[in-house]
């Protein structure tokens, strides 16, 4: 098998698993077994892809052997596989957790196929080299998450799902508009082709000015998926409504698709275009120069809003959901600096990626902790839950690891995430960036210690005095906690991986070369 075919394997495994779990509805044990094997196979295929791509290779797979840009291209470079590695790392424990967590009826009905279709959508989004297919994979991912958010079907869940669905449907319409506009402007949908044409607009007769507006429209959609303020209002309700392992996937993986799309499209594709921007406070002639201040404001508001709202929450679920909004600000902050200062793009994207990895692992772990607590105590309300450290030491320990990773205590992954964010701000000489990061860090310490004091410390209450968490679920908490510790202690390979991903995101030429565009001349095949 040619090495390029590896690119399609994770997707094929996820699709096949989704289908066989759908067909084996009648035999729940078989279904669960296949689902488990499927997610393991997915992780294994991602691991193989990672070793084939890192360092520095770009693998492409042309669907149906149609040459780019006529066919659909799948591209795996270091950035794509970095994100895939995150999704595989979160998906395996989340799936095993849900086998014990989600009720028998729900699992038999539709849980496993939906989970795998969500993985299909995520994987497709990370691998596609075609902007319209990005839309299609987004839809595949979203449609599964719609159903997963409403999974329990109670009054509160339908309300959350309604908001989530309507917002995302409007978002999809906007995305379609932006893509249609980009196609009309650049004459192509292939990302590598768009980059090529934007780099030399005169040769292809491309008018670059509309691209700025269209990319801004597209940015709104990605910001909506990533849950950046002011597009965050669906996040708390949807995260609270979905089953805990699904929330872990939503916060850990699905949200990161928006981040990935921003890095890939704005730093890899639109960065090629030059538009004279003459707005107050914006310098430079790159399309990206426009996004620097925009992202900075969004990141600042996200950090402040998410942090302050998290402190005000009286339940672990809600606290974590709002914290998710604040933490996404930490990912966007270095990107804002990267957009403004071209020299710092390498380190800034490393910062964003390391923070993404940390947030994915830590937040997935914390949501699973919240799920475990809710299952045994019936609620995550701090008024009812207290003294968990006495009765559930392993769960408490996992919460501590996840919480400290969010705060950024060495040697956990969170320390390096925060370190790189601060490093980027210092290198940029951005006082504003430092203040935001510092303020956000203080807010994080406040809400994590508040959750710790109220939920885990103190005397057990009637709800928590005789609880007995499921050992498999606890084992998955330990797996994620260990991953955070091990990746933090052995950070060097993670850094090299993130660095390769950052270089891949910025190296347009390598990306374009790998896609091997067929040149059009005079409307006919060359």
């Amino acid at each position: 098998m040619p090495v390029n075919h590896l690119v399609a394997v994770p997707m094929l495994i996820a699709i096949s698993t989704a289908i066989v779990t759908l067909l084996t509805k009648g035999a729940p044990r078989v279904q669960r077994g296949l689902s488990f094997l499927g997610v393991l196979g997915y992780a294994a295929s991602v691991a193989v892809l990672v070793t084939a791509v890192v360092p520095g290779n770009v693998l492409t797979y042309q669907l149906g052997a149609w040459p780019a840009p006529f066919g659909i291209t799948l591209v795996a470079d270091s950035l794509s596989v970095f994100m895939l590695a995150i999704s595989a790392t979160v998906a395996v424990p989340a799936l095993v957790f849900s086998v014990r967590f989600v009720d028998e009826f729900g699992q038999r009905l539709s849980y496993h196929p939906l989970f795998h279709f969500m993985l299909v959508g995520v994987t497709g989004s990370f691998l596609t080299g075609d902007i319209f297919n990005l839309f299609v994979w987004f839809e595949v991912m979203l449609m599964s998450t719609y159903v997963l958010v409403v999974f329990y079907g109670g009054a509160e869940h339908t309300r959350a799902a309604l908001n989530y669905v309507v917002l995302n449907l409007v978002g999809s319409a906007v995305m379609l508009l932006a893509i249609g506009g980009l196609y009309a402007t650049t004459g192509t949908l292939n990302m590598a082709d768009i980059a090529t044409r934007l780099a030399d607009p005169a040769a292809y007769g491309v008018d670059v000015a509309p691209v700025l507006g269209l990319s801004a429209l597209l940015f709104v959609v990605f910001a909506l998926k990533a849950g950046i303020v002011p597009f965050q209002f669906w996040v708390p309700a949807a995260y609270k409504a979905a089953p805990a392992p699904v929330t872990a996937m939503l916060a850990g993986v699905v949200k990161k698709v928006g981040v990935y799309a921003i890095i890939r499209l704005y730093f890899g594709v639109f960065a090629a275009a030059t538009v004279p921007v003459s707005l107050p406070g914006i310098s430079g002639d790159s399309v990206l120069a426009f996004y620097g201040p925009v992202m900075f404001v969004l990141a600042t508001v996200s950090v402040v809003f998410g942090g302050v709202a998290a402190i005000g929450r009286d339940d672990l679920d809600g606290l974590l959901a709002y914290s998710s909004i604040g933490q996404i600000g930490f990912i966007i902050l270095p990107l804002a600096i990267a957009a403004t200062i071209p020299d710092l793009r390498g380190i800034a994207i490393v910062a964003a990626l390391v923070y993404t990895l940390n947030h994915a692992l830590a937040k997935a772990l914390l949501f699973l902790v919240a799920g475990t607590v809710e299952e045994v105590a019936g609620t995550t309300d701090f008024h009812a839950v207290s003294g968990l450290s006495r009765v559930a030491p392993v769960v408490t320990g996992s919460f501590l690891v996840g919480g400290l990773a969010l705060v950024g205590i060495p040697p956990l992954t969170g320390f390096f995430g925060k370190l790189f964010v601060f490093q980027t701000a210092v290198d940029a000489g951005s006082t504003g960036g430092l203040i935001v990061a510092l303020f956000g860090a203080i807010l994080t310490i406040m809400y994590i210690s508040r959750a710790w004091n109220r939920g885990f410390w103190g005397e057990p209450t009637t709800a928590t005095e005789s609880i007995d968490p499921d050992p498999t679920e606890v084992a998955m908490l330990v797996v994620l906690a260990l991953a955070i510790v091990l990746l933090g202690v052995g950070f060097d390979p993670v850094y090299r991986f993130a660095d390769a991903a950052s270089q891949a995101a910025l190296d347009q030429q390598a990306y374009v070369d790998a896609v091997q565009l067929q040149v059009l001349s005079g409307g006919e095949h060359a």
Partner: protein
Amino acid sequence: MTGSAVLPETVLAIVLGVLFSLGTFLVLRRDVVRVVWGVAILSQSANVYLVTMGHIGGSVPVLSHHGGGGHGAVTDPLVQALVLTAIVIGFGTTAFALVLTYRVYEEHGTIDTAEIREVR
């Protein structure tokens, strides 16, 4: 050909404007069914917009391109493929949104978004 090409584009631009305003108006209603209608209209107007992007001026089907007709007389086939995909996705999501509306009605006993918010 220019005369016949300008007219449909002007008409389409007006239609698009009307559709988008209607969709936006409906999405902002309190009645959930109207919101779903609004979303459906918005996504369909995005589809119409996509078709418009494919240079509506073309008058020749793609297959007759061989052997005759200058470049530019062909309507872009790609946008039609895109629109078909988008339509299928739109049907799926609209169906889901309608089922969800019914479920919301069952759970809350109302489809007024203001009243739904009060239930907790």
